[in-house]
């Protein structure tokens, strides 16, 4: 009797000392979460440092506007009080002269001049000329002395330009990346046709990506289908050939295409030998060469998702359709093909997004007419050191890609991409 009640007491948790079930559960769950967190921590830190942070800081450059903001802070503060009509108060002139004088001889002066020149051509020389005349002699009337150096200091528009360019951020680069700019009245206007290049380049990037994606789909679909149909041994063999290109670097493959596609290259020689053409075809440094090489490089990225989806589609569906009276090809089209759509979506998205950022292949195999957005990003980062433009073009490219992905997710949906179909 007593023994039994003792055991019962031992089994029941003492109310005070042991925490409630909920608490214990939470504690146990927390331990698990910490463990999982610790497992992914190194990768998360790496991504943050090597990926998220650089991209974020590069993208901020696209709206960064430090030149006037950082170098003429007092002038800008004084300009705030001005209503924009008539002449600004004398304090503005004094502050400006002082700040310009202190910037003289440092890179800051060139930055200010360059930035203001974007507001109105000629402001660069205005700044440089004025800076040369500084410092002003003591006890002079600063406004009239400046106006004497250049009459433009007597115009309200000059000061409005300084105030306009004084913001910490600017939409200038982003607008320029889509061939737009802000006029003196603050309206967004289309750039003149001779300066409008980026929309064209963007459209070209989209168009070429679309063509490459289409070609990859047309070429990759039958291969994936065959691989899904064949016995494991043969499909493994095919898979080996599909993956073979991954064993060499993109650069080597592009170089190989140059050798193959050139006027004296193997392909032209063969075409001429079998009498298809009289002279060599221009296959290099035009769209053909770029398409050939890009399709070759990106094909596996189409084949693999297609294959994994097709592998999960039981052949019994087509049989069922045929047994219901549907002719074989129509059965394929009505029953098999729709089930491959998640694979087509995944493959096309992958190839398209990779195409959008392609740089090396068009740069090596294309003429200037084949250069895509990435080329201009590289141009601005490497050659003109215009971080603002490079960042803005990157932002536009990233934005376009994200929009595309969201459209994809909306209609095909990442949840609808199944690597293995549940039977």
């Amino acid at each position: 009797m007593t023994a039994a009640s003792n055991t019962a007491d031992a089994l029941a948790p003492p109310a005070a000392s042991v925490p409630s079930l909920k608490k214990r559960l939470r504690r146990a769950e927390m331990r698990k979460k910490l463990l999982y967190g610790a497992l992914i921590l190194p990768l998360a830190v790496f991504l943050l440092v090597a990926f998220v942070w650089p991209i974020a800081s590069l993208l901020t450059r696209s709206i960064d506007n430090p030149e006037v903001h950082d170098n003429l802070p007092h002038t800008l503060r004084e300009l705030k009080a001005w209503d924009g009509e008539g002449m600004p108060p004398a304090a503005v002139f004094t502050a400006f002269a002082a700040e310009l004088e202190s910037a003289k001889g440092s890179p800051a002066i060139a930055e200010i001049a360059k930035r203001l020149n974007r507001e109105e051509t000629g402001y660069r020389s205005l700044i440089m000329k004025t800076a040369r005349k500084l410092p002003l002699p003591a006890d002079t009337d600063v406004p009239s002395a400046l106006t004497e150096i250049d009459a433009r200091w007597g115009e309200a528009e000059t000061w409005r330009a300084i105030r306009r360019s004084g913001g910490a951020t600017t939409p200038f680069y982003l607008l320029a990346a889509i061939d737009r700019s802000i006029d003196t009245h603050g309206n967004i206007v289309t750039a003149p046709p001779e300066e409008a290049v980026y929309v064209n380049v963007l459209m070209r990037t989209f168009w070429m990506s679309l063509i490459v994606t289409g070609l990859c789909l047309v070429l990759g679909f039958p291969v994936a289908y065959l691989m899904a149909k064949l016995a494991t041994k043969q499909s493994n063999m095919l898979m080996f050939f599909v993956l073979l290109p991954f064993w060499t670097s993109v650069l080597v493959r592009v170089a190989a295409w140059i050798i193959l596609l050139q006027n004296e290259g193997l392909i032209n020689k063969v075409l001429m030998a079998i009498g298809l053409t009289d002279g060599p075809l221009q296959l290099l440094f035009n769209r053909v060469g770029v398409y050939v090489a890009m399709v070759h490089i990106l094909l596996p990225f189409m084949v693999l998702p297609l294959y994994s989806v097709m592998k999960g589609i039981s052949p019994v569906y087509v049989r069922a359709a045929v047994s219901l009276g549907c002719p074989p090809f129509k059965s394929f089209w009505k029953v098999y093909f729709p089930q491959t759509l998640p694979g087509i979506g995944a493959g096309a998205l992958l190839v398209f997004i990779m195409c959008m950022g392609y740089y090396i292949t068009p740069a090596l195999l294309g003429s200037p007419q084949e250069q895509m957005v990435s080329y201009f990003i590289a141009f601005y980062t490497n050659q003109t050191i215009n971080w603002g433009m490079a960042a803005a073009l990157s932002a536009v490219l990233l934005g376009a890609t994200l929009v595309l992905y969201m459209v994809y997710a909306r209609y095909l949906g990442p949840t609808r991409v199944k690597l293995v179909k549940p039977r």
Partner: protein
Amino acid sequence: MTNQTASAAPHVSFRNVQKSYDGETLIVRDLNLDIRRGEFLTLLGPSGSGKTTCLMMLAGFETPTSGEIRLEGEIINNQPPHKRNIGMVFQNYALFPHMSVLDNLRFPLKVRKLPAAEVDAKARRALDMVQLGSFGSRYPQQLSGGQQQRIALARALVFEPQLVLMDEPLGALDKNLREQMQLEIKHIQQTLGVTVVFVTHDQSEALTMSDRIAVFDKGIIQQIDSAERLYEEPANAFVANFIGENNALVGRVERIEGEHCDVRLDCGTLIRARTGSVAAGDRTLVSVRPERVVLDDSAKGCANFLDAVVKEFIYLGDQVRIRVDLCGNHDFTIKTPISHLDHSLRSGDQIRIGMDAAHMRALEPLPAA
């Protein structure tokens, strides 16, 4: 042509059909089979016995290596499957996952280019037939296994084929649902009057549903008969073993007397049995069903009265299964209703069992494997 002659001619006939996949072994050895119009025929056999291959040849997904298959008197060896107008229910239903239930049912009708109103009416009628009228807009993966099964059945019937093939359609269902579906399929078949060829390896399923059962083994039909005759009068030892439970006693036929014969068992006992496929002097397997063995007093009246040793009792609720040692067979099973059991029996006890000659069949033994 009158109705009578039409129903007399077989709906489907196989003549000397052979099928080989590798050119060395025949998966179907020599198939001769007439399928009557409106019957429920089951092809029953262990896996690899050739039953599914037969079905696939009839559906058109396999071509016979030799021989001919006739449908309505026409040779269909080379007719592509989509022109045969045969309904088919697949093992895993094969409902199109990207179409709603109703679209699945409309599919065969649309392919036949019926007017839209008719397509809709027929699809809905088929859906009502399987009692899933309110599920038309669902997708197959939103249905339970049993529901998918019914849709697959409705889809195979919606275009009103005269012949429907079913390839182990109930294999993926649990036991209760399977039994319910068996009756449902049988009732629908009887209502519509279609010919059904049903493939299964589950003998109880075959016994429940079929008008006739063709028992397959090693690429040939061992016996084709009604369920009752297959069970009570198996043509050979394979059928006896495959259909239901069976006890076999080994011996030699001593004498044949009309329908009966005397068999000297290897343990020396002489028993009387019905003559199956044996002649005097042959080795034989005498087959007897466990429920035909009598334990109580009435055993004394049986033609055969043997000694046995009780080894084990297996309690099954409504009946008891008793394993005994009988004449060298250590696995001889007796099934008896619980009410007829002598409860003082213990394992190790000597008992006398009775078996009527009418329920024992002397069959030709299985060829040595």
